[in-house]
C-alpha cells in the first residue's frame, strides 16, 4: 500500500496547512503535525491487519503529552482539563503513536500489553497497603492505575503481612512473597477503532470538530484554540467536578443528589423541571446505595504459596462489575484512573461484618460495622439472654437475702419518696391501675372480689378469680359490642 496517499479531503488539508502556521507560536498546538501523523497512522493501519488491537501504551503517552501540553498552554495542571480534553484528542493522539510503533517493528497487538486497559478497580485494597507488585515492578496505587494500566485478569500482589487474601486470579504469579492477590475485574476500556474504517471516520470527525471550532471563532488565532478548549472543558467540568469531588476521601460536602435537590428547590414548585431533578437525585442515591461488587475473602495460608489456592472461578466481582447499567456509574465513581489519584469509592465504606460496600450514612459515626449488622448482632445477643441475670436462681437468692437485710431502709426510703412526691405517686398508681384493669390481672380481679366480699385479696381462692376473670371478659365484650 502506498503510505504516502492521503485519506483526508482537500478542504481538510487546506485547513491543515492554514493551521500549521500556528505551529511556531509559543502557545500554539502543533495541529499540522498531529494531522500528518494521523494520516500516516491511518495508512499504516490500513496496511496492517485490521483485527489488530491498538497499543495500550499509547494511552500513557497521550496522557503525559496532553497533560504537559495543557500545563504549558494554560499555565496550570487542572485535572478536570485533562479529563475534558482527553476524549476530544484521543483519536488523533492514539494514531500519532502508531507510526512510531510500526517503524520500530512492534506488533499492534503485542501480548500482554495488548490486553484492554482498565480504568476502574472493584477490589478493595487494605488501607495500609502502600505498594503493589505488577509484572515484577513495585508500584504505588496511583502509579498502577495511571501508568501501569494492568489488563483484565492480571495479577496484582499486595504486600501486607498478617492479612487474608482478597480475590484470587486464575493463574499463579510465581512470586515468592505475595500475601495478597487482587483480581482486577474492572470495566474494560473500549477500543473504538477495531478497524481502519472506524479509525478514518474518527480521525476525520475529530479534525472536523477541531478545525471548525477554530475557524468559527478566530481563524489561525491562538485565542480561538483556547476558547474552543475552554468551552469543551467547561462542559466536562460541570459534569465531572461533583463526581471528582466526592471521590476525595475527606469530602464532607453535598453530594450530587444534594445538589440536584437544591436545584429542584430553586425551581417553581410542581414544575416538570423540579420533578425531573428530584427523580435524578433519587436515581443517583439509589445507584450509590446499590450493591457493589466485592471481592471474596479467603483465609490467609501461612505457607505463602499461591498454588494451594488453586483455581477460583467464582470471582463474583467481575460479572457484577461488567454487567448492567451500573457499570458506567461505577467506573466514574471508582477513582483510580490516575487523574483523580484517589482510591476507593466516594463516600462508601466496607462493612467489616457483611463485607458489603455501603454509603457512609449506613454507619453509626466512624464504626466499621454498618447499622444493620450492629442491630443484628444486638438482637442475637438479647435473644441469647433468655433468662435475665436477675431471674437466675443464684441471683434470686441474693436479692432475697439482700432485701431481708435492708428491707427497713428500703421501706423508709419509699415512704420518704412518697411524701416528697405525692403527685408522681398518684400518677404511677393510676397508670398501674389502668394497666391492671385493661389486662384483667390477678391483682385487679382479686381486689375487686375482696372489696365485694370484705376479706383480704390474698384469701380469695384462685379458681374463683379465674372464673370471675372470664365473666368480666364476657361482660366487657357484650357491653362493647351491643347495639
Amino acid at each position, binding site marked *: 500500500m502506498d503510505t504516502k496517499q492521503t485519506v483526508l479531503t482537500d478542504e481538510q488539508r487546506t485547513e491543515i496547512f492554514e493551521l500549521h502556521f500556528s505551529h511556531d507560536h509559543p502557545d500554539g498546538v502543533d495541529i499540522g503535525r498531529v494531522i500528518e501523523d494521523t494520516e500516516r497512522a491511518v495508512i499504516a493501519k490500513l496496511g496492517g491487519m485490521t483485527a489488530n488491537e491498538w497499543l495500550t501504551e499509547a494511552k500513557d503517552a497521550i496522557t503525559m503529552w496532553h497533560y504537559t501540553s495543557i500545563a504549558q498552554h494554560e499555565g496550570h495542571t487542572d485535572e478536570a482539563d485533562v479529563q475534558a480534553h482527553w476524549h476530544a484528542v484521543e483519536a488523533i493522539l492514539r494514531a500519532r503513536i502508531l507510526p512510531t510503533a510500526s517503524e520500530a517493528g512492534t506488533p499492534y497487538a503485542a501480548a500482554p500489553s495488548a490486553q484492554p486497559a482498565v480504568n476502574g478497580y472493584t477490589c478493595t485494597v487494605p488501607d495500609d497497603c502502600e505498594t503493589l507488585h505488577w509484572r515484577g515492578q513495585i508500584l504505588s496505587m496511583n502509579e498502577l492505575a495511571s501508568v501501569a494500566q494492568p489488563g483484565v485478569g492480571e495479577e496484582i500482589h499486595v504486600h501486607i503481612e498478617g492479612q487474608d487474601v482478597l480475590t484470587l486470579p486464575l493463574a499463579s504469579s510465581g512470586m515468592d512473597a505475595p500475601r495478597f492477590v487482587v483480581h482486577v475485574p474492572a470495566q474494560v476500556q473500549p477500543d473504538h477503532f477495531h478497524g481502519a474504517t472506524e479509525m478514518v471516520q474518527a480521525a476525520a470527525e475529530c479534525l472536523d470538530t477541531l478545525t471548525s471550532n477554530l475557524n468559527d471563532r478566530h481563524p489561525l488565532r491562538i485565542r480561538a484554540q483556547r476558547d474552543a478548549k475552554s468551552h469543551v472543558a467547561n462542559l466536562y467540568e460541570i459534569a465531572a467536578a461533583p463526581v471528582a469531588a466526592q471521590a476525595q476521601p475527606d469530602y464532607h460536602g453535598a453530594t450530587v443528589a444534594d445538589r440536584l435537590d437544591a436545584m429542584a428547590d430553586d425551581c417553581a414548585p410542581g414544575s416538570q423541571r423540579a420533578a425531573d431533578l428530584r427523580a435524578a437525585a433519587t436515581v443517583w442515591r439509589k445507584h450509590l446505595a446499590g450493591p457493589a461488587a466485592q471481592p471474596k475473602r479467603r483465609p490467609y495460608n501461612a505457607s505463602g504459596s499461591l498454588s494451594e489456592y488453586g483455581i477460583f472461578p467464582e470471582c463474583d466481582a467481575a460479572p457484577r462489575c461488567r454487567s448492567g447499567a451500573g457499570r458506567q456509574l461505577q467506573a466514574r465513581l471508582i477513582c483510580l484512573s490516575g487523574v483523580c489519584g484517589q482510591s476507593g469509592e466516594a463516600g462508601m465504606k466496607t462493612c467489616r461484618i457483611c463485607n458489603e460496600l455501603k454509603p457512609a450514612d449506613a454507619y453509626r459515626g466512624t464504626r466499621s460495622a454498618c447499622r444493620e449488622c450492629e442491630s443484628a448482632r444486638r438482637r442475637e445477643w438479647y435473644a441469647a439472654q433468655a433468662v435475665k441475670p436477675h431471674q437466675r436462681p443464684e441471683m434470686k437468692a441474693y436479692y432475697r437475702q439482700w432485701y431481708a437485710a435492708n428491707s427497713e431502709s428500703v421501706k423508709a426510703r419509699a415512704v420518704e419518696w412518697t411524701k416528697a412526691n405525692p403527685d408522681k405517686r398518684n400518677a404511677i398508681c393510676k397508670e398501674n391501675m389502668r394497666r391492671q384493669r385493661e*389486662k*384483667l390481672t390477678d391483682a385487679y380481679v382479686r381486689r375487686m372480689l375482696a372489696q365485694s366480699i370484705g376479706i383480704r385479696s390474698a384469701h380469695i*381462692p*384462685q379458681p374463683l*378469680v379465674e372464673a370471675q376473670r372470664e365473666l368480666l371478659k364476657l361482660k366487657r365484650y357484650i357491653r362493647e359490642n351491643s347495639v
Partner: protein
Amino acid sequence: MKTASELRAELASVFAKLKAGEIKHNEASELANLAGKMIASAKVQVEYYALRKESPDIAFLKDDEQGRANTPSHHQGHA
C-alpha cells in the same frame, strides 16, 4: 357445671362463640348473668368461711384449689 373450672371453661366457650357470631348477644348476656349468680353464691360461701375464720371448704372450688389454694399468682396478665 359443678366446679369453678367447668364454669370458667363454659364462659370461655361462650365468649368464643359470641365472637364467632354463633350465639346472639342476649343469649350470651343471659349466660353471663347466670354465671354471675353462681360466682356470687361462691363468694357468699367464701365470706361465710372468712367470718367464721375457717379455711374454706367449698366443693365448687375444691378440686381446683389443690396446691394453690389461697395463693394468688402475682401480676399475671390475661388478654
